[in-house]
């Protein structure tokens, strides 16, 4: 039943912008991340997209959020 909750929670934290290396992030950001992930899931449910598409979206979301973060940091260094 509860499988996937742990990962969705993690997705919300990462999308909120908390660094997985530690040292950067806040509870407010996580709250925003939770809102974002929940609203996104809700939109998909309401528009009738199945479980598979929801999983794909969350996966893409995690990778995209972290990629943008990583690229932004790279750009800031150089």
């Amino acid at each position, binding site marked *: 039943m509860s*499988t996937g909750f742990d*990962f969705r929670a*993690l*997705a919300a934290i*990462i999308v909120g912008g908390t660094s*997985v*290396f530690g040292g950067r992030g806040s509870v407010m950001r996580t709250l925003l991340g939770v809102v974002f992930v929940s609203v996104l899931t809700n939109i998909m449910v309401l528009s009738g997209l*199945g*479980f*598979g*598409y*929801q*999983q*794909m*979206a*969350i*996966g*893409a*979301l*995690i*990778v995209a959020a*972290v*990629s943008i973060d*990583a*690229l932004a940091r*790279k750009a800031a260094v150089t």
Partner: protein
Amino acid sequence: MNQRQGIQLGEEGGNFIRRVRTTLARRTEGRAVALLLVVGIGTWILEPVVFTSYPVTLGRIALIGLVALGLTVVILMGELDLAVASTLAVAGVVMASIDNLALGIVVALAVGLVIGAVNAFFVVVFGINSFIATLGMLFFLRGAAFVLSGEEPVRLTNIDAGISFGKPLIGDFTPRILLFILAFVAIHIFVTRVRVGREFYAVGGNREAAYDAGIPVKRRIFTGFMISGFVAALAGVINTLERTAADPTAGSTVLLASFAAAIIGGVLLNGGRGSVFGTLLGATSLGILQVALTLSGVQVDVQNIIIGLVLLLALITDPTTLKTVLGNARSFFQGRSSPQPGG
């Protein structure tokens, strides 16, 4: 295990016993051997059926072991691949959706390679922590498996091939077990004898030093992830053939078990240390344990608890971390009475 630590690693032992002890200190499989002995003897006494019906046990070991082999290569470089279980599912679904069996297998394996390359791309080019990158891929691919299969198991067109695949080929060995042994030998030789494979240890042990020594670190990471993806896809193909259907939820329990196999086998999560042989031992003990528990009527949830405990035990008793753990515990309790400066 503490005794072994005291022995100098580079020492050239004059007498035989010292040389044996030096080799033992170098090896990383100590815990896997211990666990295998405990599990093996315990099972021998309590549930001897596990050994008399060894084809079943071997099949279980091959299931856990194959994915764990690919994972070992990635962990050796200090990276993680959480996407293996989802890769397994996607490869299976892709294979079953293609009517031609041979073409399906080839495409499924190619999908595994591509997934590995994509994982490596995020890790190497974007510089994302591999844990997060492959976590995202875990979701994405699991979702993709559901979308491609229409959220229900896909039947294999050529069911006869699947049925004959499940039959013993040589002696009692089914093709699955033979393929597993083949993959084990291939990866073992690759990591210990081939230069590219040996450089994986260098990449995991000290990335800066490896880079300075002229090892193309980025290309090695690409290779490692692609091996992991390929092996996971191979496991997916085998699974689909044996069940004559591809289930999008396939392999959801494989991730934990294969990780546990590699860690118990002495593969250091930080990379640089470990062996494919250790992973084999780890997978063997876990496979025997799972079959024994299943035969004694222990439920899957309880089995997961036991595997989780074994994994924790393996992580704590890692010779290098054991010292740190003891030191931490000591400073923790001392720190309460007299706080250390900077601690």
